[in-house]
C-alpha cells in the first residue's frame, strides 16, 4: 500500500553510526543525504509521524485508511503537500531511481542480460543504454557467475555496478561469486577493497512461469555475511530502495517481484531515498502484528479488509529489510499487540519467516501471548498448472483464518 509520505525528520533503527555520510548533496530539493534530525527530506519514516521514533510514546497512532491496491493520496496526510507528485508503474519507478543515480554519479553502471538494447526483460533499464551508452549499460553473455564476478571486480576497482539477474533464480549460478567474493572480500582484505554493488532482479512466484522461474532466493541468500537484502513492494519504496542500495557502500541484493512490476501509484516529484534497514508500517492496529514483504503484502491487505469487517484490527508491517531485520519497528509492534503472524512466499523450511520467527522469539518472547504463526509456501517446487500454483502461495482466506485463530 502506497500512501503519500511527507518529508519527515527521522532516524534509522539500524545503527547510530552514520552509514550515509559519504555522498555529496543530491541536486534537488531534499537536501544533504545524512542522518541528522534537522535535515530536510532524507530517510523517510514509514509511518506518518512527525517526531523522531524514540519519542513515539507521546503520540497516538493515526489510522491510515488503506486498500490492498494502490490508491491516490489520503487527504489527511496530503494536506501539507504542495506537490501532488506523478504517477507511474513500479518498473518505471525502479528505472527512475536508477536513472537519477546514473546521472548523479558517473561510476554507476548496469550489467546484465538484455539490459542494453532490449531495455531489460522487465523494462527496468529501458532507454538507459541510448542515454548513457552501452558501456554503462552493458549487455552480457549468458554466464551469471561470471558477470557477477565481473561486477565485483569492477566494484573493487571503483565503479558502482548494478548487476541484474533476468530472473532471481538465475542468480543461483552466481552463488559462488555472491557468497565467497561479494560478501567476503571486503572482510578478508581487511577493509582494503569495497564492493558497493547492487544485485537485483525479479523473483517470487509469477503466473505459471514454472518451477525454475518461481524461486524465492531470499531464503538461500539470507545467511551470507556481508550482504544486505531488501525487498520492494510499491513504486514508492521501489525507487527509494533502489537509490539507497546504489548509494550503499555494502553489497545489497534488491528483491523485486515478477507480479508487482505493473503496480501503479503516485510518487513524489522531489528526490527521496529510503533507509535500507527500515520496515514500513502499512496499517497500524491493535490486535495482531502481521509481518510480510513483497507480494504477500497485498494478500495481507486484502485479508485485512475482511478482518476489519469482522471486527479485527490488524497491524500490518511490510518488513522490507530482509537482512538485517528491523527489530526495532517489529519489536514495538509486538509489544503492543502481543500476537504475531508472519506471511511470506518463501518455503516453510529455512525461509525468511523461519529466521524472523527465531529472531522475534529470541528477543520478544515475554511480549508474546501466543506462539508465532508463520504462513509460508509448502516445501514443493512451484507447479505449472494454475490451480496448483495458486495453492502453493498463501491466499487471503488463509490469512483471515490464521488471524481468527490467533486472536481467540
Amino acid at each position, binding site marked *: 500500500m502506497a500512501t503519500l509520505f511527507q518529508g519527515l525528520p527521522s532516524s534509522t533503527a539500524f545503527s547510530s553510526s552514520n552509514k550515509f555520510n559519504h555522498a555529496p548533496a543530491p541536486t534537488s530539493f531534499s537536501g544533504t543525504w545524512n542522518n541528522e534530525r534537522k535535515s530536510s527530506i532524507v530517510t523517510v519514516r514509514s509511518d506518518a509521524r512527525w517526531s523522531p521514533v524514540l519519542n513515539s510514546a507521546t503520540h497516538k497512532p493515526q489510522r491510515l485508511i488503506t486498500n490492498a491496491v494502490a490508491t491516490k493520496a489520503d487527504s489527511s496526510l496530503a494536506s501539507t503537500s504542495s506537490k501532488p507528485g506523478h504517477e507511474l508503474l513500479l518498473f518505471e519507478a525502479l528505472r527512475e531511481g536508477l536513472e537519477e543515480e546514473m546521472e548523479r554519479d558517473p561510476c554507476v553502471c548496469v550489467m546484465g542480460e538484455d539490459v542494453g538494447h532490449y531495455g531489460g526483460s522487465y523494462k527496468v533499464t529501458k532507454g538507459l543504454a541510448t542515454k548513457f551508452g552501452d558501456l554503462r549499460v552493458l549487455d552480457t553473455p549468458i554466464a551469471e557467475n561470471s558477470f557477477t564476478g565481473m561486477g565485483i571486480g569492477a566494484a573493487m576497482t571503483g565503479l558502482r555496478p548494478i548487476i541484474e539477474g533476468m530472473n532471481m533464480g538465475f542468480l543461483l549460478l552466481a552463488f559462488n*561469486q555472491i557468497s565467497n567474493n561479494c560478501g567476503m572480500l*571486503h572482510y*578478508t582484505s581487511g577493509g*582494503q*577493497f569495497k564492493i558497493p554493488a547492487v544485485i537485483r532482479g525479479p523473483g517470487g512466484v509469477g503466473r505459471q512461469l514454472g518451477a525454475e522461474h518461481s524461486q524465492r532466493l531470499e531464503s538461500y541468500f539470507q545467511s551470507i555475511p556481508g550482504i544486505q537484502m531488501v525487498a520492494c513492494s510499491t513504486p514508492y519504496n521501489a525507487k527509494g530502495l533502489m537509490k539507497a542500495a546504489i548509494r550503499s557502500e555494502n553489497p545489497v541484493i534488491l528483491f523485486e517481484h515478477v507480479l508487482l512490476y505493473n503496480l501503479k501509484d503516485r510518487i513524489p516529484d522531489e528526490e527521496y531515498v529510503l533507509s535500507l534497514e527500515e520496515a514500513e508500517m502499512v496499517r497500524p492496529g491493535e490486535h495482531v502484528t502481521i509481518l510480510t514483504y513483497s507480494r504477500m503484502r497485498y494478500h495481507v491487505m486484502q485479508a485485512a479488509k475482511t478482518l476489519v469487517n469482522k471486527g479485527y484490527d490488524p497491524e500490518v508491517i511490510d518488513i522490507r529489510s530482509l537482512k538485517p531485520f528491523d527489530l526495532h519497528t517489529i519489536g514495538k509492534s509486538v509489544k503492543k499487540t502481543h500476537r504475531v503472524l508472519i506471511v511470506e512466499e518463501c518455503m516453510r523450511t529455512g525461509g525468511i519467516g523461519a529466521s524472523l520467527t527465531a529472531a522475534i522469539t529470541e528477543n520478544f518472547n515475554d511480549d508474546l501471548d501466543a506462539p508465532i504463526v508463520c504462513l509460508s509456501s509448502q516445501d514443493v517446487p512451484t507447479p505449472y498448472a494454475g490451480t496448483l500454483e495458486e495453492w502453493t502461495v498463501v491466499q487471503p482466506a488463509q490469512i483471515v483464518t490464521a488471524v481468527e485463530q490467533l486472536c481467540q
Partner: protein
Amino acid sequence: MWISKTIFNHFKSRLNFTPNYAPLSLLSPRRFASTIAQNPSTFNSIHDANQQVIDFPGGTVKFIPEMRFISESSPQRIPCYRVLDDDGQPLANNFVQVSEEVAVRMYSNMVTLQIMDTIFYEAQRQGRISFYATTIGEEAINIASAAALTRDDVIFPQYREPGPLLWRGFTLQEIAHQCFSNKYDNGKGRQMPIHYGSNKHNYFTVASTVATQVPHAVGAAYSLKMDKKDACSITYFGDGGSSEGDFHAALNFAAVMEAPVIFLCRNNGWAISTPTSDQFRSDGVVVKGQAYGVRSIRVDGNDALAIYNAVQAAREMAISEERPVLIEALTYRVGHHSTSDDSTKYRPANEIEWWRLARDPVARFRKWIERNGWWNDMAESELRNSLRQQLLHSIQVAENIEKPPIEDIFNDVYDVPPSNLREQEQWVKDTIKKHPLDYPENISA
C-alpha cells in the same frame, strides 16, 4: 515480408547501403554511439552465387558440399616462445633488452621468492604457521611478468603469485605478518597464510576459490576502459583453474567487451594430483584463446626474458588495441600443491628433482646475467645470506606480535557494524571475561 517497413527504413537511414543488401543489415550487430561498430565488412559482403557464401547471424560463411570435421587436435602442438636456452644463452637477438638494473632486480626478486618459500615452508613444518604454498619452479613467471607491468596495472592473483607483490615493494616483514595473521596483517588476520592483498600495490586480495578472480579482472579492465586509463588488468590462474566455468565466460566477455586484460595461465602440469592429461584434452590452454576470439601465445614459463617480452607486448596490445590477451606459460610445479600435500604420492620423486635442478628458472637466468658481467658468486652468497637473516628475523618479529583484537571479527563485514553484530561481539567479550582460562592469552579483548 516479415520485416516491417518501419524497421527497414530505420536501418536504411542509419546505415548507407542500397536496398539489395537489406536483409544483411538486419543481421548486423546494433551498436550505440559509445562503442565501435564491429565487422563493418558484413554490410558489404557480396552475394555472389559463384562464391558459395550464405549469410547467417554473425556474418557470411562459405559453404562446401563436403562434410569436413575439424580435427580435435592439430598435427603439431602450438610452439612455445623462448628467448634463452636451458643454459641461459640467447637463441636469437630479437628480444627486448633488459637493462642491468632491471635484470639484477629481477634476479634478486626471484632469489627472494625462492628463499622466502623455502623458509616459510620450513616454518610450517615446524608448526610456527598453519599453512603455506610455495611457488618453487615458477619464479620466472611471477617476477618477470610483474617487471613488464607498471604500478597502475591491477593484479588479480590465484594464490601462487606472491612474486608481483615482492616486485612492487611488499616487504618480507609484511609477508610474515600475513602468514602469522597478526594485527599488522593488511587482512587483519582474516585469511589463511599466502592470501595476501594490498590495495596500495594494486594487488587484489587472494581468495581461495579457484578462477573466481578471472571475471573480476575482466570487470576491472572494463572499469579501466571506462575511465580511459593507461593501464590494464592481469589475472593469473593455473591449468586446473582453466577448467572452471568462470575462465571460459571471462575470456568470452573480455573478447566481446574488448577489455584490456591479460590472462596469464601458469600451466605447471598439476592441479593438486590431477595431471593435465586428466584436466583437458586440448593442446593446453593456449588453443582455447582463439575459440573465444582472444589473441594468445604460448611461452616458456621458466624463461624470465621470454615472459618479460611476452607480457610487455601483451600489455601494449591490451591497452592500445583494447583487447584481451591470453598467455600460456608452460612450467612445472616443483613444490607440493601446499603444505597439506605430499606430491610424491602421485608423481615420481626423480621427476620432481629433475625439474628442480635441471630446469630451475632462477639458475637459468643467473647464467645469463653472470655472462653479461652483472652478477657473480660473491653477490650470490651475500644476497642469499642476507635474505635468510631478514626472513628469520621477520618471522621472529611477526610471531611475537599480538593477534588482531576481537573487534576485527566483526568489523568490515559491512562498512559500519550493524546492531546484531555489535551484540554478538559483546557476547563473545562477555564469554571471554567469564572464562579467561579457556581462551588464548594473546587476544586483546
